[in-house]
């Protein structure tokens, strides 16, 4: 009880709106489309659109981690940025805790910002090189007066300890830290605002293997401690498998498959998911996987193929795939897939 009281003082007061009305899902993304105009010429005439995210829907439950996998250029980073409204939406909606993020005015958005945070891939460019670490972590906390000034130092120290940083690191500058420590600083910066939801945009891709494990463990520990909800974006399937509760697979701006971890890894339904999973090299020389080698490379998102976007590389390609965009359908218990191979909850052909 004392702890509760103290927490209330140390951290900021919660607004009533934060009390979740739909306890089940903290974040809901509905028919999200983010297009980037391709303009050319002197008068910026729009020639076309890069459909970075094209009609994606999913929801994340409080306290869980959703993994988002896909190859480069599939739009997973854009989803992350669109959820934070760092990128404007083209259509659809992002609802966080009952609030439509893209309908907020600027003031309301700024007030909401601390509740959703982001961690980037590159720990080198994501820290301002001319600010000491303590300032990087505490800057927004101070500006938003999330904690009382007299408790500020202790608060920041506490956050830093939580992230495996020492108090004396406060006065140091980012360039003095290794990649792993920088990523800890990024996590501390996000954590200091007492967020409920963190978008982790490839947080371990730039790190060495032994450091990756440290960061993954840290993220999991923090989730357990603070009840955080993660959207974990990565191209590294093993990491996603380790950390996620649910996994979405993206291909060229579309979510092609979405299910909980166990069912998607044990029983991938979409041909792309299958190929992707089989492509993971297994660190065991004796295991010879039955690898599905995809031909060709990802088409340009500015000029995606008609119909199912994957049909150009799909070994199960049918006539219908070239003509019709497959819709998300649920197979079994909450296992969603967008593929013409499945109809009425079972595989055809």
């Amino acid at each position, binding site marked *: 009880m004392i702890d509760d009281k103290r927490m209330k003082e140390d951290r900021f007061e919660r607004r009533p709106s934060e009390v979740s009305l739909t306890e089940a899902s903290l974040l809901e993304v509905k028919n999200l489309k983010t297009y980037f105009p391709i303009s050319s010429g002197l008068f910026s005439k729009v020639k076309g659109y890069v459909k970075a995210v094209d009609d994606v829907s999913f929801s994340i439950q409080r306290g869980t981690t959703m993994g988002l996998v896909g190859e480069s250029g599939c739009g997973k980073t854009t989803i992350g940025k669109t959820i934070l409204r760092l990128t404007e939406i083209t259509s659809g909606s992002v609802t966080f805790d009952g609030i439509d993020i893209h309908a907020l005015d600027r003031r309301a958005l700024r007030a909401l910002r601390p509740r*959703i945070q982001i961690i*980037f891939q590159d720990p080198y460019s994501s820290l301002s090189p*001319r600010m000491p670490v303590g300032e990087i972590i505490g800057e927004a906390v101070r500006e938003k007066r999330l904690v009382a000034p007299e408790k500020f130092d202790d608060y920041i120290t506490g956050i830093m300890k939580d992230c495996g940083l020492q108090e004396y690191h406060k006065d140091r500058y980012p360039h003095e830290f290794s990649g792993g420590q920088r990523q800890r600083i990024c996590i501390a910066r996000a954590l200091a605002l007492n967020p409920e939801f963190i978008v982790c945009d490839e947080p371990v891709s730039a790190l060495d293997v032994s450091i990756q494990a440290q960061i993954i463990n840290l993220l999991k520990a923090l989730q357990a401690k603070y009840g955080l909800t993660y959207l974990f974006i990565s191209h590294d399937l093993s990491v996603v498998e380790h950390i996620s509760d649910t996994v979405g697979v993206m291909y060229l701006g579309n979510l092609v498959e979405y299910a909980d971890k166990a069912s998607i890894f044990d029983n991938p339904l979409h041909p792309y998911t299958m190929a992707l999973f089989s492509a993971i090299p297994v660190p065991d020389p004796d295991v010879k996987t039955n690898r599905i080698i995809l031909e060709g490379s990802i088409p340009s998102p500015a000029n995606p193929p008609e119909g199912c976007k994957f049909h150009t590389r799909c070994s199960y390609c049918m006539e219908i795939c070239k003509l019709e965009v497959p819709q998300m359908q649920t197979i079994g218990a909450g296992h969603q897939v967008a593929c013409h191979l499945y109809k009425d909850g079972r595989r055809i052909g």
Partner: protein
Amino acid sequence: MMDREESIQIKDRPHKNLHEDKPPEEHVSRSSALSDEQRLKVLSPGMLVIKRFLRNRLAIIGLIIIAFMFVFSFIGGLVSPYDESQVFKYIGTMSKEYASVTYNEEYRYVMADGRDYNAAAHAKFILARNTGKTTFTHQDTEYVIVEEGDAFYRIVSSQPIADITSFRGIVAINALDGEALTESLRASATEAILSGATQFTSEGVLYTVTQNGREYVLGRTGDAAIESKNILEPAVAGTTIGYSFAYEAEKAVRAENVSSFTVDGQTFEIEEEENLSVIYAVTDGGKTPYAIFSRMAIQPISQDVFLSLAFKKQLIESVAAGEAGFVQADQAGAEIEYSLSRLNNVYTVKSDTLTHLISIHEQPSWTHWLGTDKHGMDVMTRLMYGGRISLTIGFIVVLLESAIGVILGGLAGYFGKWVDMLIMRIVDVFNCIPFLPLLIILGSIMDTLEIDPQLRIYYLMFILGIMSWPGIARMVRGQILSLREQEFMIAAEATGLSVGRRIFKHLVPNVVPQLIVFATMGLGSVILYESTLSFLGLGVKFPLASWGNIISGVTTAYEMTNFWFVWIPAGMLILLTVLGFNFVGDGLRDAFDPKMKR
């Protein structure tokens, strides 16, 4: 209701005791011998930059040069005993023309009292003498040339005193009004008419007879002037020489063995020398110099100088001896050295006179370390003040251009879209303006308007600032465009920081290094530009000093080779300052460059 839910929710969430909980990761940064913070030095980025900068020898040299320039210009000006435009003068001896001497080869005349024998008459005399005539007419008056000696003529004119009618030997003399003719005169006149003579002398007076048909006019002659090549001058100032004295003196000097003569009861004595005779007035007590008689024309250059007898004597002696100079005491008794030079027949006497002189192009000395310029101002002091102006202009212009550049470049970079488009087109336009011709025109307009030099400096700063901001704006825009895409800027946005804080705490500190480097490099070029303009006479104007216009004071090859101390130091200062700023700029760039990071 809400409260209850909230408390439930908080209870549900894990405890967040930050102080008692063990951190999830214990193993970071143990003080092991292998952890990098134990073996590697860590500094803040600013300190790192300073450290790297201080290790750069060239940059330190540049810094020392700049520091020296500042001390030289701003403190030097205070220490220097002279003012910026203090003109140095000295009381110096100057070899001035004092007098001239020529052998007189021309006739000079002395006019008799009450006669109007003027220069025109003199010219007619010369004409008549050259054609061998004995008479000439000037203004209805007939003059008769009476030769008294070699190149010594008395000019005589006659006045009618009677009409004479001669008829078959009968001579009738009718005296004109107011004239009384003596019998002897009448007899002489009759005799002359009968004999047909035109001149006769009666009682020592020369008379003329002029025939006019049967009528004759008897004229009595009187001296009009004497024409001589000798010059008679008063020996003492204030004396005027009368006609009778001149005539007598001339005659006496010419005559052999005559050593004295008397005029109007005054006895004069002649002391004859080869080229110069001195005539003394003899009085009871002795004799005083009265006049000088010579064939030489001695004239002072200045009209208010009276040449003393002794001087003249000495001068003529020296001329005769062909000496190059002589020493003569002046009235105060001080010995003055005179030099004598000859051009054709004219000897010029020069004396070293004391005058107030401007010390122009004085060679370096202990009083003027770098000499003086063509205006007689101390070059060293002017360099100090010039440095002040050059550096001040440099800094203010760079501040101005940085301010404009950062604001416009920042706006363009941060807001992008049409703001960026507009500002960048303005930059393009500015880059198209040919600034040197424009400055030349503006310079001449300011010349015409006779703008105060002090005010002109402000205009100059303004113009230079206006013309050089586009470079900085472009640089700042580029920096901001690239920084805006950096993930730390996106992270700052994600944390919900205000726009102002994002700009001033995140963006600006990262643009500043580039800006400092750019501005430092810019300082050098602004100083160079200012010097160029001042050199061309468009920038800082005399009497204000600037390094550029100090150099422009020396223009010809002669001046350049002889008065090196005027332009070489100024040139060196410009060179060193620009070099210094460039060294420092390079050093800063290297220090800021993340590639240097180890």
